[in-house]
């Protein structure tokens, strides 16, 4: 399995201010499979994605990503796992403002040491970015920036793509286009995809759906 998560627990704060965000969450994902993660704001979708993306540790439970057990992994090992196996798409794009579109597209692949210029060129073409490769992020629209972020996540052909409300900042029409590109390209690269979204329509386009309510999967 690509993701094997059992009884994941996560809380924030201490004492009376302690708030449980995830309580006994278990899920699995096969290679190449797609999963929509839905739920109200504050239901724990982003926290679960952060834990699956090795961005922060869980308080309890077992988690294996692409065969790697995350229990007890240090910062460097977690970084290596993200670099080599996971592609992340953020709602706020998080592009590097001082790199061009081309630089941003290839960044993670270069960090992982497996840049594939043919694949990048293909991605740029599919994402409609070929004419914008020498531009900087602040010269792009929101939709274009999100397309760059998707390209960056897929450029290293990761086993798993995690997307946290990737269309949250886009208008409906643009969001639809971005959504199509994300699912199609993930399929092309053979990556599994977990996407957090508020949109029922977008959730319906993925193979499976998991709904989070008050920190528990329904």
């Amino acid at each position: 399995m690509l993701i094997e998560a059992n009884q994941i627990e996560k809380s924030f704060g201490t004492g009376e201010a302690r708030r449980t965000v995830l309580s006994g969450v278990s899920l699995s994902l096969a290679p190449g499979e797609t999963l929509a993660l839905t739920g109200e704001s504050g239901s724990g979708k982003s926290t679960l994605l952060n834990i699956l993306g090795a961005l922060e540790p869980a308080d309890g439970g077992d988690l294996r990503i692409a065969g790697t057990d995350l229990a007890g992994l240090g910062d460097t090992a977690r970084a290596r796992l993200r670099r080599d196996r996971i592609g992340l798409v953020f709602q706020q794009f998080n592009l590097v403002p001082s790199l061009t579109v081309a630089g941003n597209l290839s960044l993670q692949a270069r960090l992982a040491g497996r840049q594939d210029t043919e694949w990048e060129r293909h991605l740029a073409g599919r994402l409609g970015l070929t004419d914008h490769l020498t531009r900087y992020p602040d010269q792009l629209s929101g939709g274009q920036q999100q397309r760059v972020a998707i390209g960056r996540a897929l450029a290293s052909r990761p086993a798993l793509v995690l997307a946290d409300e990737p269309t949250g900042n886009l208008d409906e029409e643009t969001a639809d286009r971005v959504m199509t590109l994300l699912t199609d390209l993930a399929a092309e690269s053979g990556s599994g995809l977990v996407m957090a979204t508020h949109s029922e329509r977008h959730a319906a386009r993925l193979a499976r759906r998991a709904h989070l309510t008050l920190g528990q999967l329904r």
Partner: protein
Amino acid sequence: MIRAALLTLLSHWRRHPGQLAALLLGLVMATALFSAVQAINAEARASYASASARLGAGALPSISGPGGGPVPVETYAALRRAGWPVTPVIEGALQAGDERVRLLGIEPLTAPGDMLPAGATESDGLDLISGASLVLAAPDVADAARSLSGIDEVRELGSLPPGEIVADISVAARLLDAGTSVSRLLLTGPAPGPLGEAAPGLILSRPTTGDDLARLTDSFHLNLTAFGLLAFAVGLFIVHGTLSLAFEQRRAMLRTLRALGLPLRTALTLMLAETLALALVAGASGVAAGYLVAGVLLPDVAATLGGLYGAEVPGTLAFRPGWALGGLALAGLGTSLAAASGLAGLARMPLLQGAVPRAWVRGGTGALAVQAAAGGLLMLCGFVAVQWGQSLMAGFVFLGGLLLGAALILPAALALILAGARRLARGPVAEWFWADTGLQARGLSLAMMALLLAVAANVGVSTMVGSFRQTFTGWLDQRLAAELYVEAETGAEATRLAAWLEGRADAVLPIRSAEAVLGGAPGAISGVVDDPTYRENWPLLADTPGAWDRLAAGEAALVNEQLARRTGLSVGDPVALGSDWSLPIAGIYSDYGNPSGEAMVSLALLEARRPGAVTGLRFGVRTAEPEALAAALREFGLPPSRITRQEEIKAASLRIFERTFAVTGALGVLTLGVAGFAILTGLLTLATMRLPQLAPVWALGLGRRRLAILELLRAALLAGITFVLALPLGLALAWALLAVVNVAAFGWRLPMDIFPGQWLWLLASTLAAALIAAAIPARKLWTAPPARLLATFSAER
């Protein structure tokens, strides 16, 4: 991975070349000023070492004729026959081509081995006496030496002090027309008995060494180093500000890189390596620039050292790896220190924390209070140090504590002043202006700290120099009362000259003295005749009634300020003038520029108490017609070089004075320039981040032109407030320089005068620096297209 990460980190500089230029220029300027000072110091110290090594002559006791005159060759021969280990020296100045050179004649056969100039070989020594007319010459006068008559060969010797040539004593005697005398004898071993018995009338003098010179000039070099460090500190404010901003702006980039799989440790290591590489590049450029600055300043420093201490330093600079490496090391260390807080902040930043730049958050109320408290503590340490001791080190601890403490307190002081102004403001624009100025002041606090230090240093140094100039000019006017100063060549000529002057001059004032140990250190006792000139013109800092009468009667002595301070003696106390001779102190006189203790007694008494030890062939001559008397003296047979008019000495002294402080003046201006640059870089780097703060005000109806003018006003206002706060700090600095550092370094204290005219000039310079610095970002704002301002709203989405 490393390459991709490094290229990504470096891409920040490509997108922000101004920031990179500010960082590099700040570091270049800081290193340049520090390196320049170090280069000058290294050159001067090498010259002292060279002077000390030269012939080992300064380290040997010296025997001279009566009155300090020459020693007949027969006397030398008699001393040798009596077993005295002496070697003769002939020295003098002569014209060689267009150059005035100093010629030193030695006798290699009797001179000990270490008397040969450093770098000279044994064969050089043998060749000197081989019969051929060979001279060893310093490189700067080698060509001139070749023009001397009868010289067959000139060998250049880099270790010789500038302007000096060395020859065999027979060659020197011929060139200087010395006749049958030598200038002096050097005692190369233990004396076999009392000199008075072997050769009555000769005077044995203690050695003076290059090390003495180094000690004397240490305080001067310490002052220069302190100024260099201050300039470096001011430069570091630029580096710290720019680096901090760069780190803040790259928080988002770092977060993204980490999310994409770059380990934190690798990221921090790369950023540290990047910082050090920048330090290396800028440090090397700074060292090169420092070399150029030192080359420009060195002639003035050489003149200073020559004028104040008689130290010979060449006016040209040699590259010495020591100061260059020191400059590089300091650049690396300084940059690392400046980067430390930024890197520590990044290291603590959680991976998922919002990466909004926090530059505007810096210096929150709590942080300002802690910083101000640390500043207060530093100032307290300085005050405690100066209360405990009046040493040079205490003086510098006080200065360091005062300056750094004040710099740390400044942001809190600015915040208080601006908060007060905000409370008094009426109307929405005024209220917004003061509140926004308070916000801007936090972002510019480092630049303002740099400005505070630069203005304070300029006020302090200009006050010190101005006080010194005023006092020194007045002192010269009083002290150089005689219209003419003449010098005889021999004791016999001095007697003849004095007799000739009787009746032709209004008064003849012999300038005579004897070496003595005063207060446990080498000094001199001068003897004066009873003449109204002294009573009317000699400035006394403290005296008893009838001081000059008591001195003339041989009942009391006057001492200089240096001796009084060093020994703790005051008027009325007895001062020991010899093992069996002491006199009460009738007065204390100022004696600027003299590093040694000195006492003054009646000439008759001095000659009676120290027969044979009194030297001096000079006279001060009072006359109503100095031109006519000078002409008559030339007819008497005194060469023009031995007749000096009062105004010539004054002019020469003031010229030396001005050159002495030309260096500190230049360093002061450069430091102010660096501070001006700090404001410019601060404003420029913050300009982009200012836009989101100004855009809402623009949207509410304040035009871009008005906003730009308010930006200029704001910069001038901040600089003006900082200037006002720097004034008392600068005056405290001047007080410390005059009352603590000067006293500890030179042994005399100057009255402190203030010069408000100079402050106005400095205020104008400060405001100009701030306005020029603010003009560029203000112009950008003025011409910013509305779309750019609107873009800040969409970015906030």
